[in-house]
């Protein structure tokens, strides 16, 4: 095989509970700001999306109406990424731009579900009753706002990204694999430029129910991710993050400036029935990553749920010189979006020549005074899937 091509991150689009765009996020992280809501879904804690005017990236109201919140968040963030890369509206490039989206599904119409459910149980109805109610009560277009691949579909329609389009599913791991495949395709010459990312709406009772089934939700009071010894859990967060990744030669040919280099992405599926499997998997991934410096920086999407967070801590304990940052504290758990978020913040930090400050009362996160040259981005899913990426400064 030919020598792998170098891949640059040339565009970053981000909206979250902390605001929109790179400057807003840089300022918020440096101010150690956290936007968390303990009341709206009490006892469940969530990080709500900061106010956004969707018109700025999704000008047609008709398009906005055809989308559910997660699709709007993602389509908006994708637009920011295209702007940031300087390719917005460039039909020649967008027409051949590849896209890998990591997605879950859209929100259900919970009031409709509850009305049907209550009526069904109260009247001890036959299953045929469901036919009647679903036929009458479901909005026909709701289906399209829920389909996983329709985030990519909306990005194609609104922004014109129309090369290949793949939607990966499977919670946290979906976006780690999205980054891995995007990088592999660029390194091998199968793609010149790829839009990769995810979106998550954390303000959804249907998701709270799903995660409550196995007691994953953080309840009652907010604590930073590393300080949830007394009550473990994740606080769902809303965010959309997209990155434009392209080959160095493609970026240079169009005069694009890079934020950072994406050098490697490695993934695993540890068999978690064995205690310690995640710690062992992360050690293996670390060694596969290409020898990152032990006194470097690491941004993790640590969830705060157990036992995986303790296993992550055990891994980090073996690399004591590393300046660690957990995005879960500032952003909550944004599921598929957590890994692209880590990549975005790594690229942003490298481009600004500094790692943002710690936000952790336990002391696990330490100050980093020198400019980072390498940042490892780590993800271990709340129930399965592990991965790491190496993001490096371009001098």
């Amino acid at each position, binding site marked *: 095989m030919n020598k792998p091509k170098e891949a640059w991150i040339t565009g970053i689009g981000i909206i979250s509970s902390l605001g929109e765009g790179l400057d807003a996020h840089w300022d918020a992280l440096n101010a150690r700001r956290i936007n968390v809501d303990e009341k709206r879904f009490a006892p469940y804690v969530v990080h709500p999306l900061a106010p956004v005017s969707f018109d700025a990236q999704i000008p047609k109201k008709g398009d906005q109406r055809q989308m559910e919140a997660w699709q709007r968040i993602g389509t908006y963030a994708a637009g920011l990424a295209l702007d940031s890369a300087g390719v917005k509206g460039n039909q020649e490039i967008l027409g051949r731009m590849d896209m890998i989206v990591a997605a879950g599904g859209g929100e259900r119409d919970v009031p409709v579900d509850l009305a049907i459910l209550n009526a*069904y*149980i109260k009247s001890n109805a036959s299953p045929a009753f469901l036919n009647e109610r679903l036929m009458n009560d479901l909005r026909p277009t709701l*289906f399209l706002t829920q389909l996983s691949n329709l985030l990519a*579909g*909306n990005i194609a329609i609104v922004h014109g990204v*129309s090369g290949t389009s793949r939607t990966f599913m499977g*919670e946290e791991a979906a976006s780690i694999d999205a980054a891995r495949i995007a990088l592999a395709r660029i390194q091998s010459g199968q793609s010149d430029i790829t839009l990769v990312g995810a979106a998550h709406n954390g303000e959804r009772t249907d998701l709270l129910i*799903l995660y409550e089934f196995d007691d994953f939700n953080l309840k009652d009071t907010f604590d930073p991710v590393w300080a949830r010894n007394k009550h473990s859990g994740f606080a769902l967060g809303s965010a959309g993050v997209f990155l434009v990744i392209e080959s160095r030669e493609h970026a240079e040919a169009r005069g694009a400036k890079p934020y950072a280099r994406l050098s490697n992405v490695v*993934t695993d599926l540890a068999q978690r029935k064995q205690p310690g499997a995640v710690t062992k998997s992360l050690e293996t991934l670390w060694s596969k990553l290409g020898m990152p410096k032990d006194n470097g920086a690491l941004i993790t999407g640590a969830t705060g749920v157990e036992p995986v967070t303790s296993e992550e801590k055990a891994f980090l304990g073996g690399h004591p010189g590393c300046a660690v940052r957990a995005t879960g504290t500032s952003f909550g758990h944004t599921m598929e979006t957590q890994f692209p978020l880590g990549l975005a913040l790594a690229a942003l930090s490298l481009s600004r020549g500094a790692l943002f400050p710690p936000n952790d009362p336990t002391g696990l996160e330490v100050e980093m005074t020198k400019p980072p040259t390498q940042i490892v981005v780590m993800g271990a899913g709340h129930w399965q899937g592990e991965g790491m990426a190496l993001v490096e400064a371009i001098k």
Partner: protein
Amino acid sequence: MTAPRDKFGRPIVVVTGMGIVTSLGAGKTDNWKKLTAGESGIRTVTRFPIDGLKSTMAGTVDFVTVEPSSSTGLTERLADLATEEALAQSGIGRKGDFPGPLFLAVAPVEVEWSQRIEVGRAVGKPDFDVNDVLKISGGGKFAPYHHRFMFGSVAGHLAEKFGTKGSPISLSTACASGATAIQLGVEAIRRGETDAALVVATDGSVNQENLIRFSLLSALSTQNDPPQAASKPFSKNRDGFVIAEGAGTLVLESYEAAVARGAPILGVVAGCGELTDSFHRTRSSPDGKPIIGCVRKSLADAGMTTEQIDHINAHGTATPENDKMEYVGISAVFGERAKQIPVSSNKSMIGHTISAAGAVEAIISLLTLEHQRIPPTINYEIPDPAIPFDVVPNVARDARVTAVMSNSFGFGGQNASLILTREPI
């Protein structure tokens, strides 16, 4: 001996094992016999009540059941069956130790009504609200439902059971998912990352709400009686697709690795093409450009011309829009040959297996190459003069077939085409 690389210098990707489950039955032998006999697997739904529904038939796989019943559970079981068949044929690796990654095409996942009802009943009071449901959801009573309704659950199960390597990829590109999964496997082998990939596409999600959702989009045929005649691809009186279930598994290997271990070579994935339609969420661009571009890309990827394609395994859903646009696209690329080349739709017999369709139909295309016989498009009684395809009407046909194009076009503008050949070109 043929060089192990194609004309572009990439490793040649071959198929060494295949497994299939459809409403017609489990396994290649049974399916092929029925497909070439023009038999339909579509029947009136018995899995749930059909009272008040506009469409009452489907291609459900009723001979496989799971307990407790759920669409995700059935989806997983169908994948198991197809994969066991494919691995037995291929003889690759060892039991529970597949030497490569998994690419899985699977439907998006949601908690289903039977579970909602169970949780709702557990609330134990009338007129409950969402907070009441949340209150009783935790504590471990329903813990298995978290795992069952995670999007990564089927892939996690398959990866563990068959011992695939690395992080398994679950993907959805709507009706093109099966083709996309094959494409990802081909790309991984061409990159030299692996000598083998396990490609699985599965869909067991004919449940009340799914059928109703497609029905509310006016996508389904309502010609319920007789159900076997409902799916009428390319006919003038076609009125929608018939929702169906199935699974297909392909073992992909580099030609070099397959030859080295003396594996059966069932065919070659010579080319893949993909192009997104940015026109509309459910409709194709009226100029057909994305379909045309997709088909051309697959030919270019294979380094082949239209003259070398002997047969098209059509997307052929039997919706008024799809079949028309498929003709527009194919005729723009194939010119006058579009009227001569045999174009058949497996969906006339097995319905639309949605997430599985691209792989199920690729497998049928490879069986077509193996047996040199083209399955028919059944229910073709009233031709549509706007679609002058040779649809291999109603009766299978013996033919010399060296290369097949298999098309998949889906909601969200997903277009994918594969070119499959008997021998390396």
